[in-house]
C-alpha cells in the first residue's frame, strides 16, 4: 500500500531546476545525437506506410482485441490511471503513462546517450537568452492532425497563462516569449540567460524534471482554461488521449490499463524508425507488494515490477533462470539512480544549527555498515550529494583534496565525541548526549514509508551507539514533519544532477531557506550561506565544460562540506528484475541504452529496444 508514497518521495527530489541560468555550454548538447539502436536517420527511407516489415500485426482495428501473451508486455506500476489521463491538474509523473508522451529528446545517462526525437536539432542564442528548436518533418498526432511548432507554443503559453498547472515552473520562470517561426521551427526568448533549458525542460531523462509536455493545440484549445485541470483526457471512442506516441490507450480501468500499438506511427511512416515495436500491447497493473511481484515474475505472469528489496531480488533470481537485472545475476542487481541518500539536518534548529554537531553525526555514521546491513552489501556508499555518474565522478576526482579533507565516509566515534564535547554536550548516565540543561536533543531520524525501511533503522541505531538519543520514525505525515521543521534529522535523497552539478547545488537556494516557523519546501535543510550562494551563482554562469568549472566546483564544495547541511550515506539503486522470457534486449550495464525503469519518462525508449522472443 505504501509503495505509492515511495514514488511520492522520489518525485519530490527534483527541486533544482527552477531558475537555471547561464552556462557557456550550448554547444556540447547540439553535437550530441549519436547512433542509437532504434533510431535511424530519416533520409534513408521513403515514407512508407503500406508495407510494414517484420511480423504482420494481427489487427485491423484500434484499439485491438485480445493479443498473444508473447506480444504483451506486462509491467507493474502504481494503481493504473483508471481512465484518468489528466495532464494539467494531476501530476502525471510516474503515473505509468509516460508511454503516451514524446519529448523533443531523450537522454540516458548510463550510456551517455541523447536521442533527438520530435526535435531534429536545437541551437541556443549566442547570448544564451534564447533557443531555437527545429522539429522533424512528418510528425502526426494520433488523430492524423499534423504536429507543428504551434502545438509547442500553445503548450508553453498555457503553462504561463493559467495558474496552478502542473510542470509550469521552468516555463514560467524563464520563457519570455514562445513563437513558431514556421511549422517546424520554435523560437523561444528567455527573460534570463539559460543554457540548460533544452535539457531541463524539453528532454526526458529518468523521472526528472519540469518537462513541458507537448500537447495537441487542436484538442486543448477547445477546453476552457478553468476546465483544463478537470479534463480527464480519456475517451477511447474519440481516440483520447491524443498523442504522437506509437501507443494509444485501449482499455483503462481499476485493474489494468492497456496501451495498444496504434495503426500507424509517424516515426515508421517517415522512416525515422525502421520498424514497428515488437511490443504490441503494454499492460500496466497495480503494484501492491514485493512478495507477489516476485512470485508473478517467477511464474512469467509479469515482465517488469517496480524496484524490489535486495534480499527479494536475490531470492527471486535464484528461483528463475529467465530473470535478470541491470548487473545480470550479481549484486547490486541495479543501476545508480539520480537520487543519492543523505541524513539531512534541519540546520536552523538546535543543536543541528551547529556544523560541529552535524559533523559529529557524520563521524558517527558508518556508511559501509549501512550498505552491508540494510542492503546485505548490495549497494554502494555515497561520499557526496551527487549520483555516481561519469561526468560528475570526473569532476569529483579533480577535487580530491577537498573530499579527502572532509571525508564523510570516515567512521570515527572519538572524533564524533570530541566534536560534541566542543559543542558543549556531555553524556548522561545512560550514555546519551545532553546539553548544558541536561536535555537530550531530539535526534529522531524521520524517514518515509517504506522506502527507507531497510536503511533507516540502521542509521538510527548507529546514532544511538554514538550517544545520540535517536529513533527511526515513519509517521504518516513525515512530509509535513520535514517541511514544518519538526523533524531535526531525516533521510532523504537529493539531486537532479546528471551531467552537471548545478541541479543539485540549486537545492540549497537561499531564497527557499525559510526561517523556523515557516514551511520550507524548496530547501528542506533550510541551509543558507552567502559565500555558497555566490559561488553557486558563478557556477550558474559557467558552462559545465569550462575549465573554470573545476575551480568553481571546488570552491563551492569546500563551503558545502565544511557546513555539511546533509551527510551523504548511500547511492540509490533501482533493482529491477526483468523477465527475458517473452522479451529480451532489456537495457543493462553491458547495453545501457536507457535506464530500465518503465515508470520513468524514458519508458518509450526501453520498449522500443525490446525484442520479442516468440516463446509461448
Amino acid at each position, binding site marked *: 500500500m505504501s509503495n505509492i508514497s515511495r514514488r511520492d518521495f522520489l518525485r519530490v527530489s527534483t527541486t533544482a531546476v527552477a531558475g537555471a541560468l547561464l552556462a557557456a555550454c550550448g554547444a556540447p548538447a547540439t553535437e550530441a545525437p549519436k547512433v542509437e539502436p532504434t533510431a535511424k536517420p530519416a533520409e534513408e527511407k521513403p515514407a512508407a506506410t503500406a508495407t510494414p516489415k517484420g511480423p504482420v500485426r494481427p489487427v485491423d482495428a484500434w484499439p485491438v482485441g485480445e493479443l498473444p501473451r508473447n506480444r504483451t508486455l506486462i509491467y507493474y506500476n502504481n*494503481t493504473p490511471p483508471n481512465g484518468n489521463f489528466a495532464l494539467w491538474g494531476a501530476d502525471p509523473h510516474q503515473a505509468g503513462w509516460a508511454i503516451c508522451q514524446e519529448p523533443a529528446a531523450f537522454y540516458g545517462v548510463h550510456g551517455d546517450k541523447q536521442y533527438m526525437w520530435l526535435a531534429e536539432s536545437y541551437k541556443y542564442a549566442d547570448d544564451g537568452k534564447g533557443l531555437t528548436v527545429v522539429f522533424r518533418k512528418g510528425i502526426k498526432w494520433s488523430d492524423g492532425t499534423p504536429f507543428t511548432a504551434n502545438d509547442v507554443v500553445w503548450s508553453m503559453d498555457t503553462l504561463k497563462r493559467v495558474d496552478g498547472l502542473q510542470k509550469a515552473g521552468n516555463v514560467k520562470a524563464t520563457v519570455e516569449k514562445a513563437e513558431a517561426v514556421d511549422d517546424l521551427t520554435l523560437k523561444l526568448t528567455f527573460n534570463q540567460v539559460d543554457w540548460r533549458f533544452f535539457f531541463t525542460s524539453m528532454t526526458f531523462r529518468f523521472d526528472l524534471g519540469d518537462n513541458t509536455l507537448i500537447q495537441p493545440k487542436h484538442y486543448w484549445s477547445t477546453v476552457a482554461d478553468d476546465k483544463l485541470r478537470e479534463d480527464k483526457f480519456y475517451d477511447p471512442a474519440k481516440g483520447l488521449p491524443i498523442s504522437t506516441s506509437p501507443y494509444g490507450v485501449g482499455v483503462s480501468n481499476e485493474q489494468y490499463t492497456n496501451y495498444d500499438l496504434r495503426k500507424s506511427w509517424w516515426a515508421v511512416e517517415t522512416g525515422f524508425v525502421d520498424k514497428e515495436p515488437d511490443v504490441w500491447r503494454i499492460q500496466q497493473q497495480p503494484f501492491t507488494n514485493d512478495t507477489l511481484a516476485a512470485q508473478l515474475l517467477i511464474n512469467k505472469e509479469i515482465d517488469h515490477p517496480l524496484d524490489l528489496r535486495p534480499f527479494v531480488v536475490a531470492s527471486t533470481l535464484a528461483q528463475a533462470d529467465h530473470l535478470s537485472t541491470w548487473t545480470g545475476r550479481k549484486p547490486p542487481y541495479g543501476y545508480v539512480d539520480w537520487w543519492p541518500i543523505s541524513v539531512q539536518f534541519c540546520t536552523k534548529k538546535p543543536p543541528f544549527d551547529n556544523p560541529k554537531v552535524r559533523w559529529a553525526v557524520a563521524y558517527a555514521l558508518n556508511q559501509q555498515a549501512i550498505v552491508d546491513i540494510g542492503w546485505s552489501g548490495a549497494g554502494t556508499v555515497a561520499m557526496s550529494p551527487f549520483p555516481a555518474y561519469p561526468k560528475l565522478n570526473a569532476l569529483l576526482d579533480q577535487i580530491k583534496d577537498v573530499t579527502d579533507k572532509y571525508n564523510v565516509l570516515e567512521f570515527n566515534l572519538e572524533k564524533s565525541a570530541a566534536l560534541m564535547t566542543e559543542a558543549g554536550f556531555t553524556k548522561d548516565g545512560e550514555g546519551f548526549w545532553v546539553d548544558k540543561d541536561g536535555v537530550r536533543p531530539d535526534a529522531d531520524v524521520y524517514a518515509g514509508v517504506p522506502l527507507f525501511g531497510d536503511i533507516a533503522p540502521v542509521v538510527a541505531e548507529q546514532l544511538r551507539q554514538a550517544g545520540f538519543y535517536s529513533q527511526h520514525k515513519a509517521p504518516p505525515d513525515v512530509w509535513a514533519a520535514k517541511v514544518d521543521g519538526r523533524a531535526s534529522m531525516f533521510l532523504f535523497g537529493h539531486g537532479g544532477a546528471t551531467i552537471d552539478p548545478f541541479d543539485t547545488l540549486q537545492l540549497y537556494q537561499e531564497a527557499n531557506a525559510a526561517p523556523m516557523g515557516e514551511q520550507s519546501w524548496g530547501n528542506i535543510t533550510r541551509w543558507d550561506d552567502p559565500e555558497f550562494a555566490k559561488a553557486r551563482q558563478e557556477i550558474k554562469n559557467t558552462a559545465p565544460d569550462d575549465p573554470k568549472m573545476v575551480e568553481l566546483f571546488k570552491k563551492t564544495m569546500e563551503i558545502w562540506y565544511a557546513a555539511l547541511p546533509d551527510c551523504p550515506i548511500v547511492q540509490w539503486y533501482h533493482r529491477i528484475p526483468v523477465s527475458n522470457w517473452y522479451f529480451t534486449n532489456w537495457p543493462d550495464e553491458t547495453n545501457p541504452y536507457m535506464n530500465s525503469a518503465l515508470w520513468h519518462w524514458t519508458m518509450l525508449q526501453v520498449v522500443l529496444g525490446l525484442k520479442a522472443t516468440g516463446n509461448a
Partner: protein
Amino acid sequence: MTLSYFVRRVFFLFLVVWTAATINFVLPHLAGRDPIKEQMLIQIASQGRTQADAEAMIRTYTRLFGLDRPLWEQYLTYIGNVMRLDFGYSINNYPRTVMDIIISRGRLTLPFVVVSIFISFTFGILLGAFLGWNRTPQWVSNLVVPPMLVLSSVPQFLVALVLIYFVAFRMRLLPMNGAYPRTMVEDWGSLTFWMGYAKHAILPILSMVLVDASGWALGMRAMMVTVEGEDYATFAEAKGLTTWRVFFRYLLRNALLPPLTGLAIRLGFIITGASLVESFFAYNGLGSTLGGAIGNFDYFLLYGIVTIMVMCIALATFVMDMIYPLLDPRISYKAQRG
C-alpha cells in the same frame, strides 16, 4: 411494525452517519492539519517552484476544494455534500471524484466481501453449533477447537500469503492476483466475466473465511452451551422430538440470535480486514484503496471511504433492526432495544 419504531430507527441511522461525518470533519481541524497544503507540498516539490509560485498553486487548489470559506460554512456544505454522497475530489487522483473511485472499486469489492461474510457466517455458525452441541462427541471438539483458536488469531494476511504461495504460486491452481482475468473488460452482464471474477475471488475469500469463520464458530459454540442449559432445551428433548428438530429449531435457532445482532457490525471489520488481503492479491478494490489512501494521505478519499463504510454499516444495522423482531418475537417493534 409501528410507525414510531420505524421513525426512531431512521433517526438513529441519520444520527450515526452524522456523527461519523462530523468526526471526519472535526479530526483534521482538531489536529490543525491542512490536507490540501500537505498534499500539494509533495506534488509541488517535484515541480521546482519558487515559494511564491507554490503559494499561488496552493491558493488555487484551496479555492477549488472550498477550504477558504469560514468554518461553519464549510461544515454546512460538507454535511450537505455528505448527504448527497458527494465527497469532492481525491487529491491524489485529481480530477477523479472520491465517489467515482468508491463506486468503481467498491463494485469489485462488494460481491467478494458479501460472499465472504455469508460463507464465514453460515459455515462458522453451523460448525460452532455442531461443536457446542451436547450430542457431538467430546473428541471432535478437542480435535477442532484448538486449531480454530489458533486460526482465529492468525493475521489474515499471513493466511493469504500461505494460500498464494502454495495454491497459486507453486501449484498454479488458481490465479495469484487481480479481480478478474486481465484479458477481460469489466462486464457484469456476461457470464464468462462472472466466472473469471469468481475464480479470482476464491483465494481472497478463503483467506478471509478461514480466519473469520473460526471466530464465529467459537462464539457460536459458547452460545450453544448456554442455550443447552435452558429449560426449553430440556423440555424439547422430553417432548421426544427428533434430534434434528431439537438441534435446528430449538437450539440453533435460539443460539443464532446474539451472533446475528453482531453481523451488521462485523461488516466494518471485514472491510478493514479486506484492505490488507486485497493488497496481497493486488485486488484493486475498496479495501486496498483504503490502504492506499492511508499511505498517500489522501484525506478526502480516506474520509470518503470511512463515511461510506459507516453508512453501509449503519444501513445494515437498520435493516437488521427491521428484520430482528421477526426473528426474535420477544423484541417487539414497540419496545426500545436494551
